[in-house]
């Protein structure tokens, strides 16, 4: 698992796109073989940082699609800056990634 990120300077804004690999189980689906419910397993929090400052925080619920895609725009970073990302799911498993502004 890793967070794939892209950051591109467009005019004065940096367009940041994130793709996180995760199953995002809702907890509502039923296993066809056993008849048991598949427990919920999804990312709860995604944080984006730039120069050690937290610039973006998102709380995701199970209603976000499998392999969540997020995009947002930043003011401030310039070409060559690194934007780092981290995520945590409801089992406490952490993931991270980074993108260099192009």
């Amino acid at each position, binding site marked *: 698992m890793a967070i794939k990120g892209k950051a591109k300077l467009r005019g004065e*804004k940096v367009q940041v796109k994130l793709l996180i690999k995760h199953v*995002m189980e*809702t907890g*509502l*689906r*039923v*296993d*066809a073989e056993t008849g048991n419910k*598949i427990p919920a397993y999804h990312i709860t929090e995604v944080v984006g940082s*730039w120069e050690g*400052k*937290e*610039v*973006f*925080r*998102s*709380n*995701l*619920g*199970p*209603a*976000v*699609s*499998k392999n*969540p*895609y*997020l*995009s*947002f*725009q*930043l*003011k*401030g*970073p310039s070409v060559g800056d690194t934007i780092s990302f981290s995520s945590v799911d409801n089992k406490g498993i952490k993931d991270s990634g980074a993108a260099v502004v192009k």
Partner: protein
Amino acid sequence: MSTEIDKAIGELYGHPPQASDLVKLKVPDIAENGAVVPISVSTDIENVESISIYVEGNPNPLAATFELSPYIVAAVSTRIKMGKTSNVVAAVYSGGTVYTATQEVKVTIGGCGG
């Protein structure tokens, strides 16, 4: 807009929501696959502190919240699941007021079942 969503928004932000043209919600009118519904929320409102997305017809209506910083432009996109045809509500919180936009999305194949 349903009162349940109003209540949920009120509980999250501590203020009752009001519908506003300033909130731009971009979702497809018809979603062929409810498992992946692209959604974009943007606004011209200044000093936005938070943006949240609700799906009225889902068992758990709150899909995602975004907490913004002064470095963020108030425009976010993601992809959500929808169990059935229902309204999608985007709420924008700024300076003690909650602004919302609502749009109905028709779902051909639901994205929550097995």
